[in-house]
């Protein structure tokens, strides 16, 4: 009996740590809200994006940087440059499935930083790779589309009304890993309802966690 209670306690603890919300399948799974959630807030075509970045680090200290990202969603490649506000390049890397770091000055010179940054860029700018496992709505009523990535991790894209979205990426144990909130966005293609986010908040959960608030300074379309 004692063993059963212990097992139930451990199970309860595991379940309480899990943040994976239940998805209630929509009656009409191809409805406009679900379709919007599945499409996500991802840019269409190639773009050169300049953001001012406010990073809140453990302890609440704030740091400010500029992020220049050239993205090509169709082939999932990105060139990412981090600069001081005065324009000095502290990090420069290419991502085309693999990461090639061209320049990295301390404290941006660790492999962990490069991997984390490219993971964040993937989450913010590219539709999740993998397939849609389920779609519908959350308990709150917000439309959701759940993707499973090839590595098994789940990503929820939640549409909370024009133009706000939330992207949640979970760890393999279904605990929340990162949350991306698209606070506001501009419609770049009215016919296809394509958006480009102009205020993004990324929160990395866990320890050490961090928060990035990215304000779009400039968006240059590169080709259609």
């Amino acid at each position, binding site marked *: 009996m004692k063993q059963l209670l212990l097992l139930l306690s451990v199970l309860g603890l595991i379940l309480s740590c899990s943040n994976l919300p239940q998805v209630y399948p929509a009656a009409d799974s191809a409805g406009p809200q679900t379709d919007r959630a599945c499409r996500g807030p991802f840019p269409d075509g190639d773009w050169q994006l300049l953001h*001012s970045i406010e990073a809140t680090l453990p302890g609440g*200290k704030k740091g*400010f940087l500029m992020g220049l990202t*050239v993205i090509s969603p169709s082939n999932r490649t990105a060139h990412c*440059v981090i*600069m001081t*506000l005065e324009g000095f*390049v502290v990090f420069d890397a290419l991502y085309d499935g693999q990461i090639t770091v061209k320049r990295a000055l301390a404290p941006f010179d660790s492999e962990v930083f490069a991997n984390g940054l490219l993971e964040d860029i993937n989450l913010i700018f590219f539709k999740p790779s993998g397939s849609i496992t389920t779609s519908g709505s959350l308990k709150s009523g917000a439309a959701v589309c759940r993707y499973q990535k090839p590595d098994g991790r789940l990503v929820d894209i939640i549409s909370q009304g024009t133009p706000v979205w939330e992207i949640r990426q979970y760890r393999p144990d279904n605990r929340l890993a990162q949350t991306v909130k698209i606070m506001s966005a501009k419609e770049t293609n009215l016919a296809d309802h394509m958006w480009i986010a102009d205020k993004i908040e990324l929160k990395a959960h866990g320890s050490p966690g961090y928060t990035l608030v990215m304000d779009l300074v400039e968006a240059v379309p590169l080709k259609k």
Partner: protein
Amino acid sequence: MKKKKIYHHLNGAIFLLTALMCIGWADSWEGLKTAAGTVTSVGARFTQEKHMKILARPLVSEGVLLFQGPDSLRWEYTHPIQSILLLHNGKTRRLVQKNGSFVEDASVNLQAMQVVVQEITQWLNGRFDDNPIFTARLEPGRKIVMVPREESFARFIQRIEILLSDRPAAIKSVMIFESEDSFTRLDFKDVILNQKLDDALFRKVK
């Protein structure tokens, strides 16, 4: 009539003397130090262009630079991102405009920026050649080329080219080469020398 003639001669002499001073001021390190020695403060507007191989078009920023001898500097960007870098009594602060008010930047990249801003104050003091970080050479056309002494610093900045103005003690433009793919160009305009500047400009947003 005689007075008018003397006035014209005097004006001509002053013009000639100024022209000669302008020719000579950037010919030697001593000339540069002597010219800078007459400067107590500098105020200028600047346009900054960031050129990188990946950019479809350069990133353009604008701002204001204020310097008060011997070592107070205010490097303020007004567009597109508002930020102020302050150097005063050896301390560097960066303040960034967020949601209508300025927030202190506590990031570690300020250490590198401290080196850069201290370098700028050295230039504005006319001290280009006695520098522990860079070797400097004076080239024709009022150009100074600075190259890092240490390989470790060359990873941050490969070369700096400073183009001096034909006006004594003033800098016309600065080119900072970070790598083969990236350089920054700063062009200064509306330079005002020796104006009285409030000390508080180098300590806070104001």
